[in-house]
């Protein structure tokens, strides 16, 4: 059937092989930690052998003469995310401790990590070694900005194909190029990502170690290990924490510092780059940025107002504002940390967080979910439709930051938003049915929360799957489906779905 297959799979395979080979490098970090702490090193040596073996093998199959076209990019992107997650699960399996030694759970944890979801199936955090817990954090950091941007930055051989890959990964036509060469743009953005991460490590560790020097315990629990672990998952808006109590385990000062870090991770990296280059006005002129910050302020104010009126929580004004701002930022940016167990919030407050799940940060950042730009276009085009209802002959382009959006893009955005919401409802339905079958009987809010949280890559849900709990409450079959949907959601649905259309494989 070879001649009927119209996808130049050899081009994709070559890429996949290269990515796996490079995956050996990040595995060195937890390996070094394991050596340092005297923990088992096998959990990292095995996956390293696998990446070198399979990666090298695929490279020999590869045909680098073939161009990476749209189909090859779809195939490569979808496969790479799946394979990297599978290899990411190996350390959990080999270590063989706790709940994640079980294959579905290991895959769930790794996929949740790589897709920066942050939902966990770890029952007991003490059962795991420091190095394995750090591997979880590192997986999130690698997935944060998108693996394919990293690949484009590293692999010069991809050349023009890199643009194709980055666009496929983020489903946006205009990956804002900073330089004429796409690989240079990717390098700049990754350099920025790395720089911001180092900065966060420095700030968090600095608070811990310098605080006592001036006589204030600013961040008692935030040692260097925790500083690195949380820098890796905050700027990447990912949400894993080696602490079972998430950010509740840290001081109010740490919580305050992490709010702008999460918001920054959700801001377009291209605009951050321009801001650093001395054009901060470009950021303020961006309507998407203003919209996203506006949503943050509005949701924070609303939940703070709802919390203030609640006697049971018994918080002062400062605590109320902090917890409202932190948890709204965490959910809105799709990070998934929690500064307290928000399942104890009044229902109305929890519903605000649920609504925030669907918004997301800016396009071109580490955020997931539907993203502010899409909502902005949907709202503006809806307002336009109201106007043309009165003036049927009026020609009114939808403008974002002064640039008009073409009608085809608007249709694509409507389609994407609708598709996300349909998938969310189908997953909710599945969780409810599967739960009823297995006797878990999730409530509607638990099911909806978990569905939104996984397909939109956020992390914690509500009820029994709340931030201080885990997803073990759901039956194994549900967890397996969630693995697929986290994968689907992270690469914005389309690259996975097209693989399942017959016409993708034929002419």
């Amino acid at each position, binding site marked *: 059937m070879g001649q009927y297959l119209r996808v130049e799979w050899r081009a994709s395979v070559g890429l996949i092989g290269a990515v796996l080979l490079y995956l050996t490098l990040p595995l060195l970090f937890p390996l070094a930690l394991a050596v340092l702490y005297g923990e088992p090193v096998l959990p990292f040596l095995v996956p390293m052998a696998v990446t070198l073996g399979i990666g090298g093998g695929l490279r020999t199959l590869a045909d680098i003469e073939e161009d990476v076209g749209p189909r090859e990019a779809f195939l490569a992107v979808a496969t790479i995310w799946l394979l990297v997650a599978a290899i990411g699960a190996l350390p959990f399996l080999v270590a063989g401790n706790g709940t994640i030694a079980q294959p579905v759970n290991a895959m769930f944890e790794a996929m949740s990590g790589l897709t920066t979801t942050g939902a966990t199936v770890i029952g007991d955090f003490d059962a795991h070694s420091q190095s394995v817990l750090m591997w979880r954090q590192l997986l999130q950091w690698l997935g944060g900005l998108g693996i394919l941007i990293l690949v484009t930055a590293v692999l010069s051989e991809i050349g023009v194909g890199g643009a194709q890959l980055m666009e496929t990964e983020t489903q946006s036509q205009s990956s804002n190029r900073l330089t004429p060469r796409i690989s240079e743009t990717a390098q700049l953005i990754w350099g920025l990502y790395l720089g911001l991460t180092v900065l966060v490590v420095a700030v968090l560790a600095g608070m811990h170690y310098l605080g006592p020097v001036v006589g204030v315990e600013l961040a008692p629990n935030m040692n260097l290990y925790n500083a690195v672990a949380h820098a890796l998952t905050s700027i990447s808006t990912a949400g894993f924490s080696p602490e079972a109590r998430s950010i509740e385990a840290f001081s109010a000062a740490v919580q305050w510092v992490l709010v702008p870090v999460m918001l920054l991770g959700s801001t377009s990296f291209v605009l951050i780059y321009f801001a650093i280059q001395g054009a901060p006005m470009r950021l303020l002129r961006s309507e998407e940025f203003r919209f996203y910050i506006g949503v943050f302020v509005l949701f924070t104010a609303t939940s703070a107002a709802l919390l203030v009126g609640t006697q049971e929580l018994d918080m002062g004004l400062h605590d109320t504002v902090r917890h409202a701002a932190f948890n709204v930022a965490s959910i809105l940016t799709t990070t998934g940390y929690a500064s307290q167990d928000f399942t104890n919030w009044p229902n109305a407050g929890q519903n605000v967080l649920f609504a925030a799940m669907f918004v997301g940060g800016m396009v071109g950042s580490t955020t997931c979910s539907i993203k502010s730009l899409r909502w902005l276009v949907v709202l503006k085009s809806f307002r336009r439709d109201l106007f043309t209802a009165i*003036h049927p002959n*009026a*020609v009114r382009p939808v403008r974002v930051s002064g640039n008009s959006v073409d009608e085809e893009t608007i249709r694509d955005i409507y389609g994407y938003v609708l598709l996300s919401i349909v998938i969310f409802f189908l997953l909710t339905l599945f969780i409810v049915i599967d739960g009823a079958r297995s006797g878990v009987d999730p409530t509607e809010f638990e099911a909806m929360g978990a569905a939104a949280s996984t397909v939109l890559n956020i992390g914690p849900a509500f009820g029994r799957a709340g931030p201080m709990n885990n997803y073990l409450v759901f039956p194994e079959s549900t967890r397996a489906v969630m693995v697929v949907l986290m994968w689907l959601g992270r690469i914005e649905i389309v690259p996975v779905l097209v693989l399942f259309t017959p016409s993708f494989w034929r002419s």
Partner: protein
Amino acid sequence: MVTVQVVVIGAGEVGTSIAADLASDHDVVVVDIDESRVEEIKYDIDVLTLVGDGTKSSVLTKAGAVEADMLIASTDDDKTNLVICGTAETIGDPFKIARVKSAEYQRTWEQTGEAFDADFVICANLQAAGTIVDVIGLPSAVEVSSFVGGLVQMAEFDITEGSPITGQTVAEADRFDSLTFAALFRDDDLVLPRGSTIIKADDRMVVIGRPESVQGFAQQIAPVATPDRGDDIVIIGGGEIGYHTARMLEAREFSPKLIEQDSDRARALAEDLPETLVMNHDPTDTGFLRRERLDEANVLVSALDSDENNMLVSVLAKRIGAERVISLVDRSDYVQLFQEIGIDAAVSPRDVTAEEIIRFTREKVAENIAVLEGGKAEVLELELDADSEFVGRSIRDIDESVDSDVVFGAVSRRGTEVVPRGDTVLERGDNVVIFVESEFVDEMLAMG
């Protein structure tokens, strides 16, 4: 007046009317590639004629471009006109004027003022749009002229008894950024306004400044006649002139409506004009006009491609009740006809272009751009070169060193306007618009 030698290339409507106007005072040579047209012109006006391709060096030499003072490239083709300027540059040193239709070329030239080897590029579409916008926006002005490529405008207004600024001092009335009160004419005398000068009824006020400031001033002194932001301005036809009209209206803070029949063009216009409501429909459909309340328009501009359509739309607009109707007219001999059937104003792009070139040519000879009130005062536009005595001095310093009263109306520097204040230091390459009493013109010219 000094007699100068002028070569006009292109004997179309524009070229012919320029030649006819200049022929009485100057030595004019007309060149055209079309023999029959040259024949015709030879008997109509008293000029020397030549048949040939003006882009060729040999033809230009034969026409006398080597020793000519001025060369006007006025064929119907933009590129031909620009090539003519380039060719002329190689053989002599006349002042070269090119007429273009595309605003793009005009803007390119404006960047440096030297592109295409042209000394002056005039865009017919921009000129027509500018005229329409002045007719719409400044009905109360006695006279309006534009300098420095439309960046600066000068307008004269009659102050009436009921005007809100009557009785105020100049300082009180000066509420606009970048607007200079250049002069007052009172009982046939020229008064150069100071901050304490009191404005009286029947004064004639001359202001110089950015078009939006002039618009704001007109709004202030004649609120009834001058359209404001809430007024309905409708442009029919989204061709080049319609587009530039809408764009210039937007710059003056109006929000016009623009009707264009072609859907792709309508979309492109809507993308370019954020403040304009673009509609895509047949403009001759009265049902549509009524449905969109266009019959209640305060001003309606018909800017379609053909005279027939413009006439149809204009008559229709008048009939259904538009307050003021302005129409574009392609053939200049129809201007009269349009006005006779009750159209409030008819603007011919060829006419306004020819007028502008003639005005510019005359000014080039006399080195001023406008003479006011029967020669009492003149407005000069000077480009400061390295030899100018003004360079490196502040306006206050210059003002104190000359005997006469002189007003710096506007200073434009590298394509943007600098508001002239006492401490503004002039730089090389600045374009300055100076308002000065006639008897001191020579002194100013010698210094500048």
